[in-house]
Protein backbone atom coordinates (compact mmCIF):
# COMPACT_ATOMS: atom_id res chain seq x y z
CA UNK A 1 0.00 0.00 0.00
CA UNK A 2 1.32 3.39 -0.97
CA UNK A 3 2.06 5.63 1.94
CA UNK A 4 -0.12 8.67 2.37
CA UNK A 5 1.46 12.01 3.00
CA UNK A 6 0.54 15.53 4.02
CA UNK A 7 2.36 18.56 2.66
CA UNK A 8 2.27 21.85 4.50
CA UNK A 9 3.67 25.21 3.48
CA UNK A 10 4.46 28.19 5.71
CA UNK A 11 5.81 31.66 5.00
CA UNK A 12 8.15 33.06 7.66
CA UNK A 13 7.94 36.83 7.99
CA UNK A 14 10.97 39.07 7.88
CA UNK A 15 12.49 40.33 11.13
CA UNK A 16 9.38 39.81 13.25
CA UNK A 17 10.05 38.01 16.51
CA UNK A 18 6.42 38.11 17.54
CA UNK A 19 5.34 35.71 14.79
CA UNK A 20 8.39 33.42 14.87
CA UNK A 21 7.26 30.04 16.12
CA UNK A 22 3.86 30.15 14.43
CA UNK A 23 4.82 27.55 11.84
CA UNK A 24 6.35 25.13 14.35
CA UNK A 25 3.30 25.66 16.59
CA UNK A 26 0.93 24.80 13.72
CA UNK A 27 2.92 21.68 12.80
CA UNK A 28 2.84 20.57 16.43
CA UNK A 29 -0.98 20.70 16.39
CA UNK A 30 -1.16 18.73 13.14
CA UNK A 31 1.19 16.03 14.48
CA UNK A 32 -0.91 15.74 17.65
CA UNK A 33 -4.06 15.28 15.57
CA UNK A 34 -2.30 12.59 13.58
CA UNK A 35 -1.41 10.74 16.77
CA UNK A 36 2.39 10.79 16.50
CA UNK A 37 4.33 9.87 19.67
CA UNK A 38 5.05 12.82 21.94
CA UNK A 39 8.86 12.60 21.66
CA UNK A 40 8.63 12.83 17.86
CA UNK A 41 6.35 15.86 18.15
CA UNK A 42 8.74 17.52 20.55
CA UNK A 43 11.81 16.90 18.42
CA UNK A 44 10.08 18.31 15.34
CA UNK A 45 8.77 21.34 17.26
CA UNK A 46 12.10 22.23 18.86
CA UNK A 47 14.23 21.82 15.73
CA UNK A 48 11.73 23.64 13.54
CA UNK A 49 11.41 26.52 15.99
CA UNK A 50 15.19 26.94 16.16
CA UNK A 51 15.35 27.05 12.38
CA UNK A 52 12.43 29.46 12.15
CA UNK A 53 14.11 31.82 14.61
CA UNK A 54 17.33 31.64 12.57
CA UNK A 55 15.43 32.65 9.46
CA UNK A 56 14.02 35.66 11.30
CA UNK A 57 17.33 36.73 12.86
CA UNK A 58 19.73 36.13 9.99
CA UNK A 59 17.91 35.75 6.73
CA UNK A 60 14.96 38.18 6.39
CA UNK A 61 12.48 35.33 6.64
CA UNK A 62 11.71 32.71 4.01
CA UNK A 63 9.47 29.68 3.68
CA UNK A 64 9.14 26.19 5.16
CA UNK A 65 7.83 23.07 3.46
CA UNK A 66 6.87 20.18 5.67
CA UNK A 67 6.11 16.68 4.45
CA UNK A 68 4.61 14.22 6.86
CA UNK A 69 4.59 10.51 6.02
CA UNK A 70 3.93 7.58 8.38
CA UNK A 71 7.64 6.93 8.96
CA UNK A 72 9.18 10.38 8.86
CA UNK A 73 8.70 14.13 9.03
CA UNK A 74 10.80 16.21 6.67
CA UNK A 75 11.16 19.98 7.07
CA UNK A 76 12.80 22.06 4.37
CA UNK A 77 13.60 25.65 5.36
CA UNK A 78 14.49 27.93 2.47
CA UNK A 79 15.70 31.52 2.75
CA UNK A 80 17.25 34.18 0.53
CA UNK A 81 19.56 35.41 3.30
CA UNK A 82 23.31 36.10 3.31
CA UNK A 83 24.33 32.43 3.44
CA UNK A 84 26.61 30.75 5.98
CA UNK A 85 30.37 31.42 5.55
CA UNK A 86 31.69 28.45 7.47
CA UNK A 87 29.21 25.68 8.25
CA UNK A 88 31.67 23.81 10.48
CA UNK A 89 32.12 26.89 12.64
CA UNK A 90 28.37 27.56 12.69
CA UNK A 91 27.78 24.03 13.97
CA UNK A 92 29.97 24.60 17.03
CA UNK A 93 28.18 25.07 20.33
CA UNK A 94 28.28 28.69 21.42
CA UNK A 95 29.27 30.15 18.04
CA UNK A 96 26.94 32.92 16.90
CA UNK A 97 26.99 35.83 14.48
CA UNK A 98 23.88 37.39 16.04
CA UNK A 99 24.21 41.08 16.84
CA UNK A 100 24.00 42.60 20.31
CA UNK A 101 20.36 43.67 19.82
CA UNK A 102 19.30 40.10 19.12
CA UNK A 103 21.34 38.80 22.08
CA UNK A 104 19.60 41.27 24.34
CA UNK A 105 16.37 39.50 23.39
CA UNK A 106 17.79 36.24 24.70
CA UNK A 107 18.63 34.75 21.31
CA UNK A 108 21.99 34.18 19.65
CA UNK A 109 23.41 31.82 22.27
CA UNK A 110 24.96 29.77 19.51
CA UNK A 111 22.89 26.68 20.30
CA UNK A 112 20.49 26.80 17.34
CA UNK A 113 22.29 24.61 14.81
CA UNK A 114 23.73 22.16 17.40
CA UNK A 115 20.23 21.72 18.86
CA UNK A 116 18.72 21.17 15.42
CA UNK A 117 21.29 18.48 14.74
CA UNK A 118 20.72 16.91 18.14
CA UNK A 119 16.95 16.63 17.70
CA UNK A 120 16.82 15.50 14.07
CA UNK A 121 17.98 12.25 12.49
CA UNK A 122 19.20 13.87 9.30
CA UNK A 123 20.25 17.45 8.61
CA UNK A 124 21.64 18.82 5.39
CA UNK A 125 22.63 22.46 4.89
CA UNK A 126 23.05 23.86 1.40
CA UNK A 127 24.26 27.43 1.35
CA UNK A 128 25.61 30.00 -1.06
CA UNK A 129 27.03 33.34 0.03
CA UNK A 130 24.75 36.17 -1.00
CA UNK A 131 22.09 33.80 -2.35
CA UNK A 132 20.62 32.00 0.65
CA UNK A 133 20.46 28.80 2.64
CA UNK A 134 18.38 25.61 2.58
CA UNK A 135 18.21 23.59 5.80
CA UNK A 136 16.73 20.15 5.17
CA UNK A 137 15.91 18.20 8.34
CA UNK A 138 14.24 14.82 8.88
CA UNK A 139 12.90 13.20 12.02
CA UNK A 140 12.18 9.48 11.77
CA UNK A 141 9.28 7.83 13.54
CA UNK A 142 10.48 4.55 14.92
CA UNK A 143 7.38 3.51 16.74
CA UNK A 144 5.04 3.12 13.79
Amino acid at each position, binding site marked *: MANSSVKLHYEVADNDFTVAGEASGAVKKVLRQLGFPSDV*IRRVAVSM*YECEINMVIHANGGHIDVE*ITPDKIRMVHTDKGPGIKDIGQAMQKGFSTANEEVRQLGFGAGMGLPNMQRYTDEMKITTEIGKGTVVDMTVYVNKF
Partner: protein
Amino acid sequence: MASEKRELLYHSVCLEEGDCKGCTTCMRYCPTQAIRVQNGKAKIIREKCIDCGECVRRCPYHAKRVVSDNFYTLKSFKHNIALVAPAFCGQFSKVTNIDLILTGLKKIGFDDVFEVARGAEVITAKTKEILAEKNHEGPYISSACPAVVRLIAVKFPSLSDMVIPLTSPMEAAAQMARREAMEKTGLEDDEIGVFFISPCPAKVTAVKQPLALDKSSVSGVIPVKDVYMKLVHALKSVDKIEKLSVSGKDGIRWARSGGETEALGIKNYIAVDGIHNVIKMLEELEDEKLNNIEFIEALACTSGCTGGPLNVENEFVANSRIRNLTEHLEKGEAKGENLSLMWDKKVEYEPFSPLDTDINKALTKMQQLEEIYARLPQLDCGSCGSPSCRDFAEDIVRGKAQERDCIFRLREKIEVLAKEIEELGKMIKE
Protein backbone atom coordinates in the same frame (compact mmCIF):
# COMPACT_ATOMS: atom_id res chain seq x y z
CA MET B 1 -7.80 2.82 24.81
CA ALA B 2 -7.07 5.88 26.85
CA SER B 3 -9.60 8.04 25.02
CA GLU B 4 -12.40 5.51 25.55
CA LYS B 5 -11.58 5.54 29.23
CA ARG B 6 -11.84 9.31 29.27
CA GLU B 7 -15.37 9.02 27.89
CA LEU B 8 -16.31 7.41 31.19
CA LEU B 9 -14.59 10.06 33.26
CA TYR B 10 -16.46 11.90 35.89
CA HIS B 11 -16.98 15.57 35.14
CA SER B 12 -18.22 18.19 37.56
CA VAL B 13 -18.97 20.72 34.83
CA CYS B 14 -22.24 20.11 33.00
CA LEU B 15 -24.88 21.94 30.98
CA GLU B 16 -28.37 22.88 32.07
CA GLU B 17 -29.97 22.49 28.63
CA GLY B 18 -33.07 24.51 29.39
CA ASP B 19 -31.04 27.62 30.15
CA CYS B 20 -28.68 27.33 27.15
CA LYS B 21 -29.42 29.78 24.34
CA GLY B 22 -26.78 28.33 22.03
CA CYS B 23 -24.87 31.64 21.96
CA THR B 24 -21.39 30.08 21.48
CA THR B 25 -19.72 32.17 24.25
CA CYS B 26 -18.57 29.11 26.22
CA MET B 27 -17.36 27.46 23.04
CA ARG B 28 -15.16 30.40 22.14
CA TYR B 29 -13.53 30.57 25.57
CA CYS B 30 -13.03 26.84 26.15
CA PRO B 31 -9.23 26.35 26.35
CA THR B 32 -9.28 22.74 25.14
CA GLN B 33 -11.88 23.22 22.37
CA ALA B 34 -14.16 20.81 24.21
CA ILE B 35 -17.47 22.50 23.38
CA ARG B 36 -19.62 22.40 20.24
CA VAL B 37 -22.99 24.05 19.68
CA GLN B 38 -25.37 21.74 17.86
CA ASN B 39 -29.09 22.19 17.30
CA GLY B 40 -28.94 25.38 19.34
CA LYS B 41 -27.43 23.81 22.46
CA ALA B 42 -23.88 23.61 23.78
CA LYS B 43 -22.41 20.14 24.15
CA ILE B 44 -19.30 19.19 26.10
CA ILE B 45 -16.95 16.65 24.52
CA ARG B 46 -16.15 14.69 27.65
CA GLU B 47 -12.75 13.38 26.72
CA LYS B 48 -11.48 16.92 26.00
CA CYS B 49 -12.90 18.64 29.11
CA ILE B 50 -10.50 19.38 31.97
CA ASP B 51 -13.14 20.83 34.35
CA CYS B 52 -11.39 24.20 34.55
CA GLY B 53 -14.75 25.98 34.77
CA GLU B 54 -13.94 28.64 32.18
CA CYS B 55 -17.38 28.01 30.61
CA VAL B 56 -19.08 28.30 34.01
CA ARG B 57 -17.48 31.71 34.41
CA ARG B 58 -18.26 32.92 30.88
CA CYS B 59 -21.84 31.71 30.27
CA PRO B 60 -24.06 34.82 30.21
CA TYR B 61 -27.16 32.70 30.92
CA HIS B 62 -25.63 30.66 33.78
CA ALA B 63 -26.45 27.46 31.95
CA LYS B 64 -23.16 25.81 32.86
CA ARG B 65 -23.48 24.09 36.22
CA VAL B 66 -21.18 22.37 38.63
CA VAL B 67 -22.34 19.10 40.13
CA SER B 68 -21.34 19.05 43.79
CA ASP B 69 -22.47 18.11 47.29
CA ASN B 70 -24.69 20.15 49.58
CA PHE B 71 -25.48 20.56 53.27
CA TYR B 72 -27.79 17.51 53.30
CA THR B 73 -24.75 15.30 52.78
CA LEU B 74 -23.55 16.34 56.24
CA LYS B 75 -26.32 14.20 57.73
CA SER B 76 -24.48 11.02 56.68
CA PHE B 77 -21.76 11.64 59.28
CA LYS B 78 -21.59 12.00 63.06
CA HIS B 79 -18.94 14.69 63.07
CA ASN B 80 -18.43 17.18 60.24
CA ILE B 81 -15.39 19.31 59.51
CA ALA B 82 -15.24 22.23 57.09
CA LEU B 83 -11.98 22.35 55.13
CA VAL B 84 -11.42 26.04 54.58
CA ALA B 85 -9.29 27.06 51.58
CA PRO B 86 -7.13 30.17 51.95
CA ALA B 87 -9.07 31.86 49.12
CA PHE B 88 -12.29 31.54 51.15
CA CYS B 89 -11.08 34.08 53.69
CA GLY B 90 -11.05 36.83 51.06
CA GLN B 91 -14.76 36.54 50.29
CA PHE B 92 -16.17 38.69 53.08
CA SER B 93 -16.09 42.46 52.95
CA LYS B 94 -16.34 43.42 56.61
CA VAL B 95 -14.28 40.63 58.11
CA THR B 96 -10.91 41.62 59.52
CA ASN B 97 -10.32 38.43 61.45
CA ILE B 98 -10.00 34.89 60.05
CA ASP B 99 -11.24 33.48 63.38
CA LEU B 100 -14.61 35.15 62.82
CA ILE B 101 -15.08 33.25 59.54
CA LEU B 102 -14.06 29.96 61.15
CA THR B 103 -16.30 30.51 64.18
CA GLY B 104 -19.21 31.34 61.82
CA LEU B 105 -18.78 28.02 59.99
CA LYS B 106 -19.41 26.21 63.27
CA LYS B 107 -22.80 27.92 63.44
CA ILE B 108 -24.07 26.69 60.07
CA GLY B 109 -23.75 22.93 60.50
CA PHE B 110 -20.08 22.08 60.87
CA ASP B 111 -18.81 20.68 64.15
CA ASP B 112 -15.28 21.81 63.49
CA VAL B 113 -13.08 23.62 61.00
CA PHE B 114 -9.64 22.93 59.56
CA GLU B 115 -7.56 25.34 57.49
CA VAL B 116 -6.26 24.03 54.17
CA ALA B 117 -3.42 26.51 54.64
CA ARG B 118 -1.97 24.05 57.18
CA GLY B 119 -1.92 21.40 54.45
CA ALA B 120 -0.25 23.96 52.18
CA GLU B 121 2.51 24.48 54.75
CA VAL B 122 3.13 20.73 54.88
CA ILE B 123 3.22 20.53 51.08
CA THR B 124 5.62 23.48 50.95
CA ALA B 125 8.05 21.67 53.24
CA LYS B 126 7.80 18.44 51.22
CA THR B 127 8.22 20.32 47.91
CA LYS B 128 11.45 21.84 49.22
CA GLU B 129 12.78 18.32 49.83
CA ILE B 130 11.88 17.17 46.33
CA LEU B 131 13.39 20.26 44.71
CA ALA B 132 16.63 19.70 46.61
CA GLU B 133 16.92 16.19 45.10
CA LYS B 134 16.58 17.60 41.56
CA ASN B 135 16.40 14.32 39.70
CA HIS B 136 15.51 15.48 36.20
CA GLU B 137 16.46 18.09 33.65
CA GLY B 138 14.37 21.23 33.33
CA PRO B 139 12.02 22.85 35.81
CA TYR B 140 9.52 21.28 38.17
CA ILE B 141 5.83 22.05 37.67
CA SER B 142 3.57 22.45 40.69
CA SER B 143 0.75 19.91 40.96
CA ALA B 144 -1.42 22.18 43.12
CA CYS B 145 -4.02 23.03 40.47
CA PRO B 146 -6.00 19.92 39.44
CA ALA B 147 -7.17 21.54 36.19
CA VAL B 148 -3.54 22.08 35.16
CA VAL B 149 -2.57 18.50 36.07
CA ARG B 150 -5.45 17.27 33.91
CA LEU B 151 -4.45 19.64 31.11
CA ILE B 152 -0.95 18.15 31.09
CA ALA B 153 -2.43 14.63 31.01
CA VAL B 154 -4.51 15.51 27.96
CA LYS B 155 -2.22 17.81 26.03
CA PHE B 156 1.41 17.83 27.23
CA PRO B 157 2.62 14.24 27.71
CA SER B 158 6.28 15.22 27.37
CA LEU B 159 5.95 17.46 30.44
CA SER B 160 4.31 14.91 32.71
CA ASP B 161 7.60 13.88 34.35
CA MET B 162 8.20 17.47 35.43
CA VAL B 163 5.02 17.57 37.54
CA ILE B 164 5.76 17.19 41.24
CA PRO B 165 4.05 13.94 42.28
CA LEU B 166 2.67 15.42 45.49
CA THR B 167 -0.89 15.43 46.68
CA SER B 168 -2.71 18.77 47.07
CA PRO B 169 -2.86 20.91 50.21
CA MET B 170 -6.56 19.98 50.36
CA GLU B 171 -5.74 16.24 50.61
CA ALA B 172 -2.96 16.82 53.13
CA ALA B 173 -5.31 18.94 55.24
CA ALA B 174 -8.08 16.33 54.99
CA GLN B 175 -5.74 13.64 56.35
CA MET B 176 -4.64 15.91 59.20
CA ALA B 177 -8.23 16.93 60.01
CA ARG B 178 -9.38 13.30 60.12
CA ARG B 179 -6.57 12.28 62.41
CA GLU B 180 -7.22 15.17 64.79
CA ALA B 181 -10.97 14.52 64.83
CA MET B 182 -10.54 10.81 65.55
CA GLU B 183 -8.32 11.64 68.53
CA LYS B 184 -10.66 14.36 69.80
CA THR B 185 -13.98 12.53 69.38
CA GLY B 186 -13.04 8.86 69.54
CA LEU B 187 -15.15 8.27 66.42
CA GLU B 188 -14.25 5.92 63.58
CA ASP B 189 -12.81 7.23 60.31
CA ASP B 190 -16.04 6.63 58.36
CA GLU B 191 -18.13 8.47 60.93
CA ILE B 192 -16.25 11.68 60.22
CA GLY B 193 -17.27 13.93 57.33
CA VAL B 194 -14.61 16.18 55.83
CA PHE B 195 -16.07 18.80 53.47
CA PHE B 196 -14.02 21.04 51.25
CA ILE B 197 -15.53 24.45 50.55
CA SER B 198 -14.48 24.82 46.94
CA PRO B 199 -13.72 27.79 44.74
CA CYS B 200 -13.68 25.66 41.57
CA PRO B 201 -15.14 22.64 39.74
CA ALA B 202 -11.70 21.06 39.20
CA LYS B 203 -11.48 20.42 42.95
CA VAL B 204 -14.85 18.65 42.84
CA THR B 205 -13.54 16.33 40.15
CA ALA B 206 -10.26 15.88 42.05
CA VAL B 207 -12.28 14.50 44.98
CA LYS B 208 -14.84 12.42 43.04
CA GLN B 209 -12.31 10.92 40.65
CA PRO B 210 -8.72 11.73 41.62
CA LEU B 211 -6.18 11.42 38.79
CA ALA B 212 -3.23 10.28 40.85
CA LEU B 213 -4.77 8.99 44.10
CA ASP B 214 -6.64 5.74 44.72
CA LYS B 215 -9.15 7.53 46.93
CA SER B 216 -9.61 11.06 48.22
CA SER B 217 -9.67 11.72 51.97
CA VAL B 218 -12.34 14.37 51.40
CA SER B 219 -15.97 13.23 51.91
CA GLY B 220 -17.64 15.91 49.86
CA VAL B 221 -17.28 19.28 48.17
CA ILE B 222 -19.56 22.27 48.68
CA PRO B 223 -19.15 25.34 46.45
CA VAL B 224 -18.14 28.63 48.12
CA LYS B 225 -21.24 30.32 46.74
CA ASP B 226 -23.52 27.80 48.50
CA VAL B 227 -21.85 28.44 51.84
CA TYR B 228 -21.55 32.19 51.41
CA MET B 229 -25.13 33.38 52.05
CA LYS B 230 -25.64 31.06 55.01
CA LEU B 231 -22.40 32.23 56.51
CA VAL B 232 -22.96 35.94 55.92
CA HIS B 233 -26.16 35.71 58.00
CA ALA B 234 -24.50 33.56 60.65
CA LEU B 235 -21.59 35.98 61.05
CA LYS B 236 -24.00 38.60 62.40
CA SER B 237 -24.92 36.39 65.32
CA VAL B 238 -21.39 35.43 66.37
CA ASP B 239 -20.99 36.91 69.86
CA LYS B 240 -17.81 35.19 70.95
CA ILE B 241 -15.01 34.67 68.42
CA GLU B 242 -13.15 31.41 69.07
CA LYS B 243 -9.42 31.21 68.53
CA LEU B 244 -9.38 28.67 65.70
CA SER B 245 -6.88 29.88 63.12
CA VAL B 246 -3.39 28.46 63.50
CA SER B 247 -2.05 28.93 59.96
CA GLY B 248 0.83 31.17 59.08
CA LYS B 249 1.41 33.52 56.19
CA ASP B 250 3.09 30.87 54.02
CA GLY B 251 0.02 28.67 53.88
CA ILE B 252 -2.57 31.37 53.38
CA ARG B 253 -0.67 33.13 50.58
CA TRP B 254 -1.29 30.03 48.39
CA ALA B 255 -4.69 31.66 47.75
CA ARG B 256 -3.20 33.89 45.07
CA SER B 257 -0.91 33.35 42.14
CA GLY B 258 2.76 33.40 43.13
CA GLY B 259 1.99 32.57 46.76
CA GLU B 260 3.14 28.97 46.58
CA THR B 261 6.49 29.99 45.10
CA GLU B 262 7.00 32.81 47.60
CA ALA B 263 6.50 30.28 50.38
CA LEU B 264 9.13 28.05 48.74
CA GLY B 265 11.58 30.92 48.45
CA ILE B 266 12.65 30.08 44.89
CA LYS B 267 14.52 32.64 42.83
CA ASN B 268 14.13 31.58 39.19
CA TYR B 269 10.46 30.82 38.83
CA ILE B 270 7.44 31.50 36.70
CA ALA B 271 4.03 32.01 38.25
CA VAL B 272 1.41 31.90 35.53
CA ASP B 273 -2.35 32.16 36.02
CA GLY B 274 -5.39 31.99 33.76
CA ILE B 275 -5.82 28.76 31.78
CA HIS B 276 -5.09 30.33 28.38
CA ASN B 277 -1.83 31.81 29.70
CA VAL B 278 -0.95 28.46 31.25
CA ILE B 279 -1.34 26.70 27.89
CA LYS B 280 0.86 29.29 26.18
CA MET B 281 3.54 28.85 28.83
CA LEU B 282 3.46 25.04 28.67
CA GLU B 283 3.79 25.18 24.86
CA GLU B 284 6.92 27.31 25.31
CA LEU B 285 8.27 24.94 27.91
CA GLU B 286 7.68 21.98 25.58
CA ASP B 287 9.53 23.81 22.79
CA GLU B 288 12.47 24.42 25.15
CA LYS B 289 12.06 28.19 25.00
CA LEU B 290 12.37 28.61 28.76
CA ASN B 291 15.87 28.52 30.15
CA ASN B 292 17.18 28.57 33.71
CA ILE B 293 13.73 28.21 35.27
CA GLU B 294 13.60 26.04 38.38
CA PHE B 295 9.91 26.03 39.18
CA ILE B 296 6.63 26.73 37.45
CA GLU B 297 3.54 27.54 39.43
CA ALA B 298 0.59 27.28 37.03
CA LEU B 299 -2.96 28.04 38.12
CA ALA B 300 -6.02 27.73 35.88
CA CYS B 301 -7.86 30.73 37.30
CA THR B 302 -6.85 34.36 36.87
CA SER B 303 -4.88 35.56 39.91
CA GLY B 304 -5.03 32.10 41.47
CA CYS B 305 -7.65 30.27 43.56
CA THR B 306 -9.31 33.55 44.50
CA GLY B 307 -10.29 33.69 40.80
CA GLY B 308 -12.21 30.39 41.00
CA PRO B 309 -15.59 30.47 39.21
CA LEU B 310 -17.47 29.28 42.32
CA ASN B 311 -16.31 32.21 44.43
CA VAL B 312 -18.48 35.20 45.16
CA GLU B 313 -15.98 38.05 45.41
CA ASN B 314 -13.93 39.66 42.66
CA GLU B 315 -10.47 38.00 42.70
CA PHE B 316 -8.49 41.23 42.93
CA VAL B 317 -10.49 42.47 45.88
CA ALA B 318 -10.16 39.06 47.54
CA ASN B 319 -6.38 39.09 47.07
CA SER B 320 -6.11 42.52 48.64
CA ARG B 321 -8.13 41.37 51.64
CA ILE B 322 -6.05 38.25 52.09
CA ARG B 323 -2.94 40.41 52.07
CA ASN B 324 -4.39 42.51 54.88
CA LEU B 325 -5.62 39.49 56.85
CA THR B 326 -2.19 37.85 56.83
CA GLU B 327 0.00 40.94 57.30
CA HIS B 328 0.65 40.36 60.99
CA LEU B 329 1.11 36.57 60.75
CA GLU B 330 4.28 34.53 61.21
CA LYS B 331 5.57 32.38 58.33
CA GLY B 332 3.95 29.20 59.65
CA GLU B 333 5.32 25.68 59.51
CA ALA B 334 2.68 23.02 60.08
CA LYS B 335 3.97 19.58 61.02
CA GLY B 336 2.80 16.78 58.79
CA GLU B 337 4.34 13.62 60.11
CA ASN B 338 3.16 10.22 58.89
CA LEU B 339 0.93 11.67 56.20
CA SER B 340 0.59 10.07 52.80
CA LEU B 341 1.76 12.93 50.61
CA MET B 342 3.06 11.29 47.44
CA TRP B 343 0.83 10.30 44.53
CA ASP B 344 -0.43 6.70 44.58
CA LYS B 345 -0.01 6.34 40.83
CA LYS B 346 1.44 8.12 37.84
CA VAL B 347 -0.89 10.30 35.79
CA GLU B 348 -1.49 8.56 32.50
CA TYR B 349 -1.31 10.38 29.17
CA GLU B 350 -4.87 10.49 27.91
CA PRO B 351 -4.82 12.33 24.60
CA PHE B 352 -7.85 13.19 22.53
CA SER B 353 -8.20 10.49 19.88
CA PRO B 354 -6.23 11.12 16.66
CA LEU B 355 -8.03 11.49 13.30
CA ASP B 356 -7.57 7.77 12.82
CA THR B 357 -5.71 5.00 14.62
CA ASP B 358 -4.24 3.91 11.26
CA ILE B 359 -1.55 6.47 10.41
CA ASN B 360 -2.13 6.17 6.64
CA LYS B 361 -5.84 6.83 7.06
CA ALA B 362 -5.06 9.66 9.48
CA LEU B 363 -2.80 11.30 6.90
CA THR B 364 -5.47 11.00 4.20
CA LYS B 365 -7.97 12.62 6.58
CA MET B 366 -5.45 15.37 7.36
CA GLN B 367 -5.09 16.06 3.63
CA GLN B 368 -8.90 16.34 3.39
CA LEU B 369 -8.92 18.56 6.48
CA GLU B 370 -6.39 20.93 4.85
CA GLU B 371 -8.45 21.06 1.63
CA ILE B 372 -11.69 21.79 3.49
CA TYR B 373 -9.95 24.41 5.63
CA ALA B 374 -8.65 26.19 2.52
CA ARG B 375 -12.27 26.56 1.29
CA LEU B 376 -13.55 28.00 4.57
CA PRO B 377 -13.64 31.77 5.26
CA GLN B 378 -11.07 31.42 8.11
CA LEU B 379 -12.86 34.02 10.21
CA ASP B 380 -13.42 31.70 13.18
CA CYS B 381 -16.89 33.21 13.66
CA GLY B 382 -18.26 30.12 15.42
CA SER B 383 -21.66 30.25 13.66
CA CYS B 384 -21.22 26.65 12.50
CA GLY B 385 -21.00 25.50 16.12
CA SER B 386 -17.27 24.73 16.14
CA PRO B 387 -14.78 27.05 17.86
CA SER B 388 -12.65 27.78 14.78
CA CYS B 389 -12.59 27.05 11.04
CA ARG B 390 -9.82 24.51 11.65
CA ASP B 391 -11.82 22.74 14.36
CA PHE B 392 -14.80 22.80 11.99
CA ALA B 393 -12.75 21.19 9.20
CA GLU B 394 -11.66 18.55 11.72
CA ASP B 395 -15.27 17.95 12.80
CA ILE B 396 -16.28 17.44 9.14
CA VAL B 397 -13.45 14.93 8.59
CA ARG B 398 -14.49 13.13 11.77
CA GLY B 399 -18.07 12.97 10.46
CA LYS B 400 -19.41 15.20 13.23
CA ALA B 401 -20.36 18.20 11.03
CA GLN B 402 -21.18 19.06 7.43
CA GLU B 403 -19.76 21.77 5.22
CA ARG B 404 -23.17 23.37 4.73
CA ASP B 405 -23.19 24.19 8.47
CA CYS B 406 -20.83 27.04 7.50
CA ILE B 407 -23.02 30.06 6.84
CA PHE B 408 -20.54 31.48 4.30
CA ARG B 409 -20.27 28.24 2.35
CA LEU B 410 -24.07 27.95 2.42
CA ARG B 411 -24.41 31.47 1.03
CA GLU B 412 -22.05 30.63 -1.83
CA LYS B 413 -24.08 27.53 -2.62
CA ILE B 414 -27.35 29.51 -2.57
CA GLU B 415 -25.85 32.09 -4.93
CA VAL B 416 -24.92 29.36 -7.40
CA LEU B 417 -28.36 27.81 -7.08
CA ALA B 418 -30.08 31.18 -7.56
CA LYS B 419 -28.10 31.78 -10.76
CA GLU B 420 -29.01 28.33 -12.07
CA ILE B 421 -32.69 28.97 -11.38
CA GLU B 422 -32.46 32.34 -13.13
CA GLU B 423 -30.87 30.69 -16.18
CA LEU B 424 -33.52 27.99 -16.11
CA GLY B 425 -36.24 30.66 -15.91
CA LYS B 426 -34.86 32.38 -18.99
CA MET B 427 -34.78 29.09 -20.89
CA ILE B 428 -38.41 28.42 -20.08
CA LYS B 429 -39.46 31.91 -21.33
CA GLU B 430 -37.59 31.38 -24.59
